[in-house]
């Protein structure tokens, strides 16, 4: 997937507007200085938007485009192009391609004559979509032409690549519109350049896994330093993990809704062995009695489960001290999750990481309304969940187990906003937990939420879905599994 840095120009400077409002323009400086600061290599395709041109309808920043083209950059430029003359002026300045928005949706005849005059490979149709409807004229108008027809036209004219922006996306909060790109995969063979909402490295990974997305425009995230071209390698082939969770009390697997209404769900060893046979990538065992009774975790259950498995086992529940941690490792846990005790004394994370290694330390965060809770979700703290997880990474946690207490047991889907809020700040992996109800929920937690693993309990205990079904589904959706 090609990464295409994007520069919005106004008065010869690179700017960012908020919600298209010129009054809010924030200036980043001369284009050349910005490109140097962003380490944009020669030969890179650059997406340039002439903001004044989109407003006034005639090319303005022609000098800048001329200078950029002389720096060995492949410039595609857009902004209010409504005629053959406009297009020719940009191409004469050295632009490699021109980007046409409104024309693509509203003026098929002009689009056809642009292609006749300059060739299909020099025209990039830009399709702006909000809630499934094509928007034109700087997003102000809904086009009468349905999305499918716009693309049928583009395809019929021999164009192979189009820029698609979902303008309803709001940056970090929601991420790129994977659903839109997937919908278009069924509608058209045109390759897509994704635009809008790209803000994390995980967004790039997820986009690169969509077979019809050939490129991705990055603007704000680059300028704000959240992404860089150099460190945006795409780990698209590393398998993501499906993890069943055993909540254990008094040696039995139990389950409940939002940590309450507990029911029996079987023998932990039998469950564990069944899950490994179904293809579970790891197992998490949480002793939910431990915190409540201030007792040590049920070491015997851990020992029996560990002895029955040939996959990694993470154990949590009531771990307060280095000795608790060590005892669980000795009982056969590969990793230990700490929660309440770490919130009360964050240094515990560092001490555990120094003593047992970063790989052994999982920080478990039970979030409610964006804040961390303790004592199995019963007690709310004033600690912001995403800040706490970022702090835990600094202190030496190797991975985060992030549970939405609000969603737990509801089958209404993982809390994607919570996940994005956390994963966008971290380098280490996040295991998404709480709310799995359908196959698509697992996909969304990885694709949109940026999770590196997905966890569920009752869904698997009740055999509503098997681990194997989830993995098959993820593979079919382009997400690598082992």
């Amino acid at each position: 997937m090609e990464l295409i840095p994007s520069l919005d120009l106004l008065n010869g400077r690179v700017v960012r507007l908020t919600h298209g409002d010129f009054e809010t323009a924030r200036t980043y400086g001369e284009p050349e200085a910005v490109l140097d600061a962003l380490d944009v290599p020669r030969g890179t395709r650059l997406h340039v938007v002439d903001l004044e041109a989109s407003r006034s309808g005639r090319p303005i920043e022609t000098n800048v485009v001329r200078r950029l083209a002389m720096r060995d950059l492949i410039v595609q430029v857009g902004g209010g192009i409504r005629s053959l003359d406009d297009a020719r002026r940009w191409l004469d300045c050295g632009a490699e391609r021109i980007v046409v928005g409104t024309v693509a949706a509203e003026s098929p005849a002009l689009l056809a004559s642009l292609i006749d005059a300059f060739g299909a490979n020099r025209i990039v149709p830009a399709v702006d979509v909000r809630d499934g409807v094509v928007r034109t004229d700087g997003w102000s108008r809904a086009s009468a032409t349905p999305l499918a027809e716009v693309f049928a036209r583009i395809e019929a004219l021999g164009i192979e690549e189009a820029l698609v922006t979902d303008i309803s996306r709001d940056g970090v909060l929601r991420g790129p519109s994977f659903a839109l790109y997937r919908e278009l995969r069924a509608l058209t063979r045109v390759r897509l350049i994704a635009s809008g909402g790209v803000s994390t490295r995980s967004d790039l990974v997820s986009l690169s896994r969509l077979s019809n997305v050939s490129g991705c425009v990055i603007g704000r995230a680059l300028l704000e330093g959240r992404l860089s071209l150099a460190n945006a390698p795409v780990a698209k082939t590393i398998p993501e993990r499906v993890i069943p969770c055993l909540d254990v009390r008094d040696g039995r697997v139990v389950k409940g809704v939002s940590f309450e209404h507990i029911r029996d769900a079987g023998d932990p060893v039998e469950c564990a062995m069944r899950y490994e046979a179904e293809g579970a990538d790891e197992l998490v065992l949480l002793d939910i009695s431990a915190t409540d009774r201030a007792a040590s975790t049920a070491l015997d259950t851990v020992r029996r489960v560990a002895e029955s498995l040939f996959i990694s086992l993470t154990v949590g529940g009531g771990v307060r001290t280095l000795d608790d941690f060590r005892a669980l490792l000795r009982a056969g846990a590969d990793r230990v999750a700490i929660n309440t005790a770490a919130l009360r004394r964050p240094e515990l994370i560092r001490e555990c990481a120094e003593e047992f290694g970063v790989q052994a330390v999982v920080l478990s965060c039970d979030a409610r309304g964006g804040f961390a809770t303790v004592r199995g979700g019963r007690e709310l703290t004033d600690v912001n969940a995403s800040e706490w997880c970022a702090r835990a990474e600094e202190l030496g946690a190797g991975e985060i187990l992030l549970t939405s207490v609000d969603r737990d047991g509801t089958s209404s889907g993982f809390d994607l906003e919570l996940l994005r809020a956390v994963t966008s700040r971290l380098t280490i992996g996040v295991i998404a937990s709480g709310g799995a109800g359908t196959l698509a929920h697992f996909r969304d937690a990885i694709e949109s939420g940026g999770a590196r693993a997905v966890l569920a309990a009752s869904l698997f205990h009740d055999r509503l879905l098997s681990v194997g079904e989830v993995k098959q589904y993820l593979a079919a959706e382009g997400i690598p599994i082992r």
Partner: protein
Amino acid sequence: MILIDSPFANIANISRALRAAGAPLEVSADPSRIAGAEKLVLPGVGSFAAAMSWLVERRLDAAIREAVNRGTSLLGICVGHQLLFESSSEHGPTRGLGLVHGSIERFAGALPVPQIGWNRVAARGPLFDGVEREAFYFVNSYAARDAENETATADYDGPFTAAVQRDRVFGVQFHPEKSSAAGLRVLRNFVQWN
């Protein structure tokens, strides 16, 4: 077959997996037993330097070399695999056993270190008979790259050496005992190899 009883390893897990793979197993840190073993497994987690100095203190480095010279088959796992190399850059350059060529370096890419989780491996050779294109479970911050004796590679923001073989000396960077059926198959291949 002797599993070297290193304090820098999860002996219980590895011995359980080796037994499940059919090995008649003895766990020992006795240099004379190790020097005379028919097959050896060298496990390890944590720090290269600590694991290596433990071997040297116990004179197990010499015992392992003596065994290999006599024709003993050896399998190194994770840090045990890294110890087979000439050196590691962990905590400054540290010498290894030098049974395979190359050195161990820290991952330098943009992905989180340590690598924790499954990764797909492209492999060849007797250890991977039947599991040449499987995923295995890794926990590592360091690895060899493009090693001369490489028999398997994986990719973690760039290729790294997932396994090596030089004559009767084998090493796997992943944890076969945490790699479910594919891992047990690798161990069984080692147990049955002649």
